[in-house]
């Protein structure tokens, strides 16, 4: 049942022009950023050869690409997640699912998984760019896969937050704006405090960005992974509870 709902969700995304437009625009922006980092790399390549332990192409081209991707997707994921539940509520299609022999948990997980399928497609397209470099040079595949894992986790976290916001309202635009606000806040929550300030480690821990940048550097720390998993499951549980409550109160 979860897979059935997920597949329908995934398919319906591609039935509207939205998914195609988003994929195309992301691809163009990231290709541009990819191209300029390669340009920079060519310019400083000569100097790099003189250095000992010089950073390779993976550090100078791929990590920046993923960083840009994460920022672009911070803005785009709310647009993808906004319709998940709010549109079902607005069009009253949710009653089809609620009166079918399917539990609310299955509905929520199905919806979330549908979005993850889309995110995976997106990531596959993005990772084609760094992989194309492997034709001409040697890549650090470990670092690349750590970076991809990081990108996947952070996108999954964005989606979970978006899913929850989408369950709160029946207006997709409001869902998108509030998701974006929440994500941006969590992204830059540690921006103001100097690393020495009291309690700064809490803000640092809360920041999405901190955990992501560790993964980008190729450090696969279980603490970061647990942070993302907690983040995701937290929002999914909240969404399920939210839908249950709406059935009681609506």
């Amino acid at each position, binding site marked *: 049942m979860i897979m059935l709902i997920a597949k329908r969700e995934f398919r319906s995304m591609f039935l509207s022009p939205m998914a195609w437009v988003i994929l195309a625009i992301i691809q163009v922006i990231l290709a541009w950023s990819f191209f300029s980092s390669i340009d920079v790399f060519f310019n400083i390549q000569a100097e790099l050869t003189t250095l000992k332990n010089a950073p390779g192409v993976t550090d100078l081209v791929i990590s920046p690409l993923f960083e840009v991707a994460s920022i672009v997707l911070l803005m785009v994921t709310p647009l993808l997640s906004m319709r998940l539940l709010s549109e079902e509520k607005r*069009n009253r299609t949710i009653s089809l699912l609620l*009166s079918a*022999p399917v539990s609310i948990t299955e509905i929520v997980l199905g919806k979330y998984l549908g979005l993850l399928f889309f995110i995976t497609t997106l990531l596959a397209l993005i990772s084609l760019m760094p992989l194309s470099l492997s034709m001409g040079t040697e890549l650090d595949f470990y670092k690349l896969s750590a970076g991809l894992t990081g990108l996947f986790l952070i996108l999954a976290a964005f989606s979970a937050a978006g899913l929850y916001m989408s369950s709160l309202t029946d207006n997709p635009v409001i869902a998108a704006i509030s998701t974006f606000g929440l994500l941006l806040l969590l992204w830059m929550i540690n921006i103001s405090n100097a690393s020495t300030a009291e309690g700064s480690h809490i803000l640092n821990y809360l920041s999405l960005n901190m955990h992501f940048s560790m993964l980008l550097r190729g450090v696969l720390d279980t603490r970061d992974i647990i942070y993302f998993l907690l983040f995701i499951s937290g929002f999914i549980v909240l969404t399920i509870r939210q839908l249950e409550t709406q059935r009681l109160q609506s």
Partner: protein
Amino acid sequence: MSSLISVNHLSRHYGDFCAVNDISFELAVGDILGFLGPNGAGKSSTMQMLSGNLAPTLGEISINGIDLLEQPKQAKASLGYLPETPPLYKEMTVTEYLDFCGRLHRINRQQRHNICDSAIEHCGLGHVQHRLIQNLSKGYQQRVGIAQAILHSPPVIILDEPTVGLDPIQILEIRALIKTLGENHGIILCTHILPEVQAVCNRVQIIDKGSLVYSADMDDMLNRQATCYEIVLSPTIKQVDISGDDIFKSVTTMSDNRFLIESDLPAEEIIEHTVRQKWGLTHFSSHHTSLEQIFIDLTLTDDKAS
């Protein structure tokens, strides 16, 4: 035989507002229950509770013997529901949508194909089955909604205003379909259209301000109609003059010389009798305690009282 739906003391509050107040009823196989009520009477809330879309504040619902609140999944398996707004994914084609609904009800591939075809045929969707739902007219969308509700041949079918937006011929077809389905299913039909209830249903319930105010078999109602007559006599005749007559079971004055009488005798004999009595009979007709009349009586008197 156990009933398909049994509802016990069902109540639903929205904050302080009580939308549904202590309703109990049952539905058996072969029943087509007309559920009537003015706007805001709690019809849709009741239907939403029966279909598991809304949790009741108090009370029990069991569908096909399974408690809806304790085992929602099993209970919902024997339920087909068409809400007020048909729940359609408009970016899908009719066949894709019905196939998805079939899968939601865990029907295997081979059967799914057959039931989709028969639902499409029953609802007259044959020539639009490969079109996107969003491009269909309102009437066709409504038919897709009905197809969805009867697709998996559930024992209990709940239809909330199924004939809205349909053309007259289609309405007749859907009514005929509902009648056929009613032979071996239990159907609840929620509607504003009173003639529809009279045409299709064998039981009727009226809900007003959250409470059940009327519940009767259609046959009983029709039988009562047959024994009631409206007569107009000469102005000098008063109720006391005729109420003593033992052929009338009851006499009610409707206006000055217009009376409502109830009698078991055939109409012919009553006429002969009144003529013999020389009461100046000028008008004789069978009285229609139509559903409409009952509906208006029940829902309007409540308004005055409150």
